[in-house]
């Protein structure tokens, strides 16, 4: 069934996408963009209706990568679910680990040792830096800069992934956090290697910016395109760099102070216009802020255990109850909602996926723009299909 044929019930007063009136001349062209389109970052489909070059309707179609992640959780124990979380947003497995660990720690009231908190911050900020760098690389790729900016980003990402590999044993599927700490300790040699990588990052960002920020093509294609109003962004639950590019100051690291983020000095970069360029700029600035946090964390990291010795691992049965834990993942608010009924498996395990919810406003941003800009607007949202479809 073509989803464009569905008659939708119009409800007045809600924040719905505007209706684009066509001049009635000619026919609308319906395009199924995806699921196998190189710019959709995986298997994602947009059903477009085009009036010439102009987008009149856009309906995203999901589910090509659906594997009922949430139901798998109901059949395995809390700890056994940790490696599955790596596969949600597979670019940022360590932040997924942290969000899940945080939710379970809230559920059982578990404390985390100091050194483990520092390691978590270091790994999360490294993850953020490499995610934003590759997102910008992909965005440029979709703008027509075939390969080169992406390879610059990937060169830097590879150094960070090498760090992940030497600490956790895996580049992308890290499975590193535990309820009450981290799986293994970082050696002094690893910390030195991390310091070296972090010290080289500012030069990379400078170089990246020198090539891109003032680039004529980047400015022409990004400025004033795909504008998202701040009131709509909040109402539609948009989070992360997308929300802040629209000028809304909401960073969960600052709001919730989860982990030990209140110990670090960092600013929250904000945009003014909410267009693609602002989203690009917010990401660049967030890499710079992440470098700042990394320098502070790598300087102050104390010695000590990385796992709470009293943390229960075998026979882990949380008391009946529920908890919602959330973190500022690179893509937005990543939350885990857990209900325990006292058994070893979660009764209900829910992922609040920032990638999916940020796509709510995709139609609003694309309507009226050219079809070539849809690729860019979509690229500036920054999604991973493993998390959208779960």
């Amino acid at each position, binding site marked *: 069934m073509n989803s464009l044929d569905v008659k939708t019930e119009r409800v007045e007063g809600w924040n719905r996408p505007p209706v684009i009136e066509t001049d009635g001349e000619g026919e609308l062209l319906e395009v199924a963009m995806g699921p196998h389109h190189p710019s959709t970052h995986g298997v994602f489909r947009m059903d477009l209706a085009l009036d010439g070059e102009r987008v009149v309707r856009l309906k995203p179609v999901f589910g090509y990568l659906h594997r009922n992640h949430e139901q798998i959780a109901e059949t395995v124990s809390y700890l056994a679910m940790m490696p599955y979380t790596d596969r949600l947003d597979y670019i940022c497995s360590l932040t997924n680990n942290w969000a899940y660990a945080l939710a379970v720690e809230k559920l059982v009231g578990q404390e985390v040792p100091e050194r483990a908190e520092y390691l978590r911050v270091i790994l999360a900020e490294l993850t953020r830096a490499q995610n934003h760098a590759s997102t910008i690389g992909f965005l440029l790729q979709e703008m027509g800069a075939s390969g080169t900016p992406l390879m610059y980003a990937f060169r830097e990402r590879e150094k960070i992934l090498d760090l992940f590999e030497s600490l956790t044993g895996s580049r992308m599927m890290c499975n590193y956090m535990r309820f009450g700490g981290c799986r293994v300790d970082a050696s002094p040699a690893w910390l030195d290697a991390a310091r070296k990588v972090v010290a080289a990052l500012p030069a990379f960002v400078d170089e990246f910016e020198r090539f891109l920020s003032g680039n004529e093509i980047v400015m022409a294609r990004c400025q004033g395109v795909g504008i998202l109003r701040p009131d709509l962004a*909040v109402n539609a639950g948009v989070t992360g760099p997308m929300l802040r590019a629209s000028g809304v100051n909401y960073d969960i690291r600052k709001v919730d102070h989860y982990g030990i983020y209140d110990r670090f000095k960092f600013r929250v970069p904000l945009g003014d216009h909410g267009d693609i360029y602002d989203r690009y700029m917010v990401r660049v600035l967030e890499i710079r802020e992440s470098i700042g946090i990394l320098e502070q964390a790598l300087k102050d990291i104390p010695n000590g255990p990385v796992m709470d010795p009293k943390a229960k691992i075998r026979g882990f049965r949380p008391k009946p109850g529920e908890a*919602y834990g959330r973190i500022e993942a690179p893509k937005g608010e990543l939350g885990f909602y857990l209900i325990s009924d006292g058994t070893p498996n979660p009764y209900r395990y829910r992922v609040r996926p920032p990638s999916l919810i940020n796509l709510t406003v995709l139609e609003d941003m694309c309507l009226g723009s050219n079809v070539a800009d849809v690729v860019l607007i979509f690229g500036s949202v920054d999604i991973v299909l493993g998390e959208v479809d779960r």
Partner: protein
Amino acid sequence: MDGAGGDSIVKTVEEIKAAIEAAVPGAGVTVVHNGSPSGQHSLRIEPEHAVEVATFLRDDAELALDFLSNLTGVDFLDKEVSEKIKVTRPVTKTVDGLEQTVEETVEETRKHVEPGYLEVVYHLFSVAKKHGPVVLRMRTRNRSDEVELPSLTPIWRSAEFQEREVFDLYGIVFKGHPDLRRLLMWDEFKDHPMRRDYVEPDDYEYEPTPHDKVLARAQAHKAAAAAGEEKA
């Protein structure tokens, strides 16, 4: 109320309940206690007043819950509850060679079925005031035919895809949703796979292969072995 580790909200759930009941007369709000150390207690609201309550929570200057972060479904199956009750009833007994009817207290186990329900849980935050979460929940009457709940998409647009997902995976029908279709499963799919009693259908499409004869012989062999025959 304890926040998600952050600026805890100024009001407790009881205060929010009182505020809702003052603003929306007749709204039945129940405080649901949470036994976990997270301390995130929730408020159960009645579907009849849900839209008014949600509008109040969003627009109230003090609460300003402008951000519906998470919306999800939970399935609770029919539960068989057995309880022991003391019953006094006449019992015929032979006492001193005489048949007598004596009142006696007997313990009896009675079983009854508590009907299951589907529940939707909402996690609300405030971007303006930077507090939260406030947890709301809403129940359907049962799991089979009365599964309608009002949609909150007109109030928080972030519910648009999440309500579609709950409709898809749990089968809760959101009245007033502008575009209620399946989100993750395909349109022709019939069941709701996240329900606790979901059974995967045996719809594997067998295609003929060059080894069909071998497979058929293997099936016959297994059947014969199961029947206890010595030679296949």
